[in-house]
């Protein structure tokens, strides 16, 4: 499909703007004027609509078919949430309105949504306070580590320079720790258990440890039952426990990170709470803390006051008077429309519904694992949580790799699982079915996987050639990186 700029026809217009209704034609002085050509495309509205409709047909979303991308929680995004986010009373409100003198009066609906979602997340996770400012999961990690740094600074603990992270962790954890100014120390996973090696952990933790970052269940889909013991060891060294909420979809109503002695955590609203991934964003990464870290949370915070300024009433207001705050992580209160969608989702499900979500998500993952265990090597064949890891080890004997299996799935109309992650498992394929998929869909996926396992043995070259049914075949990534054609200029 041609690039939009190639479709441009000089003189064509896509919009008609209102006429200038003021008796002013204020030229900008020559020295400030743009001299270079602007050169945007010139198209009609229909040209533009057809171009993007064409592009959308070359895309695959949750609404297209099964999207078992491990660690991404590609669940169904309820349509009602989009409708709510589009309501004029939310979509058109300028964020500064709430900060004007008396402005809280004009934004009670929006402020109450933020305050209420903070309370709900506290109940779901067992933390004491939340900020919804962080704009994505990685931004939440960065925020959480900044809070930890502020805590250590206040305590005068200057030698705390390291963050310990299990080697199976998502790459975001170490890079967020580095972005927050920390050195990273990887802790190995026990090869037999798939869980953090406690002895190695004990050897690694020291007075220099500022924090331990963990995901539980971890990226292998396994729940670590020794979590309180790990937290105890960390706390004995003055280190704080950080919980990466990437896998929260596995444990709602079953385990609260706060009860597992975690001090800080983030939640991915775009995973667990069903807000759309948008082709890569926007997300939202609220951060929850235990009470002792609350003074450091970003400002402004949303408080509940009474008409007379007391804390008892039902009037919501902004407060920036927190001397210990780390400052501002976002320009305002976070990705509000994402927050709103997550709020509506939690309202619709309630506590019972969220518990049912985790039960079904975990059942679906185990069901897929059991459906495939005779055909694929499963490095940790025990009860998994919301996702399971298979590998292409058996298919490797025929020269078929995880990538070939992934591309083979594309030809069978299904989005591949996450491949080559976690990095600690060779030829890994990580499947996260989510609770919104039916048994029929899981069976169809398993059937496709079994068929591919058969093709790997009988006709491996058919998988090397895959995909043949998609708009493009395998792309030359080497050429892409060397030529660096990243803009049509």
């Amino acid at each position, binding site marked *: 499909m041609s690039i939009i700029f190639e479709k441009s026809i000089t003189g064509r217009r896509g919009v008609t703007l209102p006429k200038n209704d003021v008796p002013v034609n204020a030229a900008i002085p020559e020295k400030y004027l743009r001299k270079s050509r602007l050169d945007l495309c010139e198209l009609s509205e229909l040209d533009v609509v057809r171009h993007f409709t064409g592009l959308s047909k070359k895309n695959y979303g949750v609404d297209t078919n099964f999207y078992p991308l491990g660690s991404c929680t590609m669940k169904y995004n309820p349509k009602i949430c989009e409708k709510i986010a589009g309501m004029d009373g939310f979509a058109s409100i300028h964020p500064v309105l709430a900060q004007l003198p008396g402005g809280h009066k004009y934004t009670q609906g929006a402020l109450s949504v933020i305050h209420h979602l903070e309370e709900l997340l506290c109940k779901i996770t067992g933390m004491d306070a939340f900020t919804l400012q962080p704009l994505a999961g990685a931004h939440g990690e960065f925020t959480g580590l900044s809070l930890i740094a502020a805590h250590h600074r206040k305590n005068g603990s200057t030698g705390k320079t390291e963050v310990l992270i299990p080697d199976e962790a998502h790459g975001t954890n170490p890079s967020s720790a580095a972005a927050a100014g920390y050195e990273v120390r990887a802790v190995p996973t026990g090869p037999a258990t798939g869980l953090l090696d406690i002895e190695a952990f004990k050897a690694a933790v020291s007075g220099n440890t500022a924090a331990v970052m963990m995901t539980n269940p971890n990226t292998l889909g396994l729940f670590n039952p020794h979590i309180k013991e790990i937290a105890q060891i960390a706390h004995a060294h003055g280190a704080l426990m950080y919980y990466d909420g990437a896998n929260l979809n596995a444990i709602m109503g079953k385990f609260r990170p706060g009860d597992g002695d975690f001090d800080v955590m983030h939640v991915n609203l775009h995973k667990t709470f069903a807000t759309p991934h948008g082709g890569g964003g926007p997300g939202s990464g609220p951060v929850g803390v235990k009470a002792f870290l609350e003074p450091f949370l970003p400002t402004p915070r949303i408080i509940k006051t009474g008409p007379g300024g007391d804390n008892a009433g039902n009037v919501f207001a902004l407060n920036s008077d927190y001397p210990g705050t780390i400052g501002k992580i976002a320009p305002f209160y976070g990705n509000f429309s994402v927050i709103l969608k997550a709020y509506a989702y939690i309202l619709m499900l309630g506590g019972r519904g969220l518990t049912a979500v985790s039960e079904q998500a975990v059942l679906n993952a185990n069901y897929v694992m059991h459906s495939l265990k005779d055909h694929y090597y499963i490095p940790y064949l025990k009860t998994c949580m919301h996702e399971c890891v298979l590998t292409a080890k058996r298919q490797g004997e025929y020269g078929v790799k995880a990538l070939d299996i992934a591309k083979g799935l594309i030809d069978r109309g299904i989005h591949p699982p996450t491949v080559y992650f976690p990095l600690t498992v060779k030829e890994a394929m990580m499947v996260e079915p989510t609770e919104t998929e039916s048994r029929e869909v899981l069976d169809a996926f398993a059937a496709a996987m079994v068929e591919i396992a058969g093709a790997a043995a009988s006709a491996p070259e058919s998988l090397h050639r895959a995909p043949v049914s998609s708009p493009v075949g395998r792309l030359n*990534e*080497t050429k*892409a*990186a*060397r030529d660096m054609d990243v803009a049509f200029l």
Partner: protein
Amino acid sequence: MSPSDLKYSKTHEWVRVYGDTATVGITAHAQDTLGDITFVELPKVGIAIGQGGEAGVIESVKAASDLLSPVSGEVASVNNALLPAPETINSDPYGAGWLFTVKIADKAELDTLMDAAAYEKFLETEA
């Protein structure tokens, strides 16, 4: 087979010694593991590097690897011809794909490196 006139590090660099100068590259095994190399960042001429110190970066499509200097010393020259054609490292790792030269500070360090036979054995244990 790894050329027998070279010395090897555990991080898969090779060294060729001429008098006081060491030429450094990455091994055939290293370039094969990385895959198609798309970018190389070389050290600045004149800077001092310690043994095992970071001397640059080699990137392929899906991986990045720090380039470590197998010996300490001052960087004497770099192979600028690789910048527009990093794929040379794939096609000729022991020849035109050389990366930089170092004025050797301590010849004793060479004894800590492996010869070709030892490196081959090392590759077997790593696999």
